[in-house]
């Protein structure tokens, strides 16, 4: 397994983001700790702007993730629409 994870603070604003990640990454494992949620997956985790916006009912910039992030593992690939964690090169990821 090529473990990747994203850990977010467990707070009101982050919960819709956490739920969106769980929705968009159905094979991920969710681990809950005091004050923190850690989502683990094999190979890739994607945070999609559209899904988060659907839950928040407002515009959401993937950079707002900075407010709630605790930790990540993996290579980061960010666009206006998605925030992705992956292993391997960017070219491999885009395939």
């Amino acid at each position, binding site marked *: 397994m090529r473990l990747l994870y994203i850990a977010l603070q467990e707070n009101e604003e982050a919960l819709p983001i956490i739920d969106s990640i769980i929705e968009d990454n159905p094979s991920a494992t969710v681990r809950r700790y*005091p*004050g923190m949620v850690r989502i683990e997956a094999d190979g890739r985790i994607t945070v999609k702007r559209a899904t988060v916006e659907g839950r928040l009912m407002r515009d959401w910039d993937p950079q707002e993730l900075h*407010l709630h992030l605790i930790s*990540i593992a993996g290579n*980061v690939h960010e666009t*206006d629409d998605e925030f992705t964690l992956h292993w391997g*090169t960017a070219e491999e990821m885009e395939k």
Partner: protein
Amino acid sequence: MSTTKKLGLREKYRLMTRGLGWETTYQPMDKVFPYQSFEGIKIHDWDKWEDPFRLTMDAYWKYQAEKDRKLYAILDAFNQHNGHLNISDARYVNSIKLFLQGITLSEYNAHRGFVHLGRQFRGVGPRVASQMQALDEIRHAQTQIHALSHYNKYFSGFHGFQGMYDRLWYLSVPKSYFEDALTAGPFEFLTAISFSFEYVLTNLIFMPFMSGAAYNGDMATVTFGFSAQSDEARHMTMGLEVIKFMAEQDPDNIPIIQRWMDKWFWRGYRMLVLVAMMMDYMLPKKVMSWSEAWEMYFEQAGGALFEDLARYGFRMPKYADVSVKEKDRYSHEAWAALYHYGAAAGLHTWIPTSEEMEWMAEKYPNSFEQFYKPRLDYWDEQQKAGKRMYCASLPQLCQVCQIPAWFTEPDDPTQLCHRETEYKGETYHFCSDGCCDIFKGEPEKYIQARLPTHQIYQGNCGGASIEEVLKWSGIEVGHDNLDYLGSDDQKNWERWKHQTAVEKKIA
């Protein structure tokens, strides 16, 4: 209504980094950026540096201001509601004394390093990223001092952290670590701090400290911790990016970086022994054991990372296998040493309760009851008989990590590990092969190490008696040090809890 199209992330990033740099004409670039080449790292195209977050200064200010607003709202509430009374137990406070004494000014040292890089990198991308990180690091130091100042009103050990960082013997461990990095070149500094520390190891500081704080009712520390950690996620990304960038620039860079990875993995791992001890012994309500944390954050997460980096030709840091062998003993050896030097510490130490020892036996089935519980039990009996162990003999220190040589042989936890070497006719001693190798890599640097034991004997630390040295180190003897049992902290805590109980009854 404005019809101006909002800039895309990539375009904005280009304009706000590359667009800010220029080629100098009055002076050659090599003179303007004199630190670029002496480490042997070859960079052919600085424009290949990509910040994966593509964070620009305007967005940075916006998000950082938002983080600080949230943080200070909570700190105010915490202070106004006497939040310190909601912690699990006053013993807990010692873990944040250790944090303030050992980590806060290390954040400041990291700030100094990134300020230097923010000026000295020839590439604009890394320069902007370093400037942001310099601001993050000083924000961390400031918010930590601010948050913990509330505890300073009620508990011992918080008052003299600046003097302690420079003078208190065991704090030379984090201090020398950061000074080692600060005195290296810019690429080694990034490998040391951004990659080895932030990416590979920092999770083991912030996650357990902050989850531990949450679990032990310390809202102030959770809040500054998670606020800082939200910056760390960006720092970690930069750490990984810098490794990939250097590796892709020139294959000659790879062996140099691998050597730094080996060195800084070991340096960081040794410093984290203080965290191991904090997790297993200093949190009254425990989140996870050091051994579990090491498996999760190093063996699994680090394993996946180095598997990914193998495509460049990197391998796991040297002596990673030793860290795995040591995981069942790391915290136990450290706490025993601190307990036995409990008269010379800026915080309280104690024998764990029987419930805590049961937890340890469960978490460390192959080591705790065999090797460490009997020692604690013996000390406990001695303490109950009025003979609390306070060792007054100065420890032999490792020339590199500066930790007392308390570590045992990788394959024999009952035998102290000792390595020595000679350089230019002088003898040097080490706690491990890892530290000995680091010395041999750059002896001319480490012969200058300022080892507290030796400084005391040279007469540079306020006097010859332990009491004089402690006073010189900023310790209020009889208040900050000694056992938790009988301490001001314990007495005050019991009084406050009693008072709170009475007040509740009346209400």
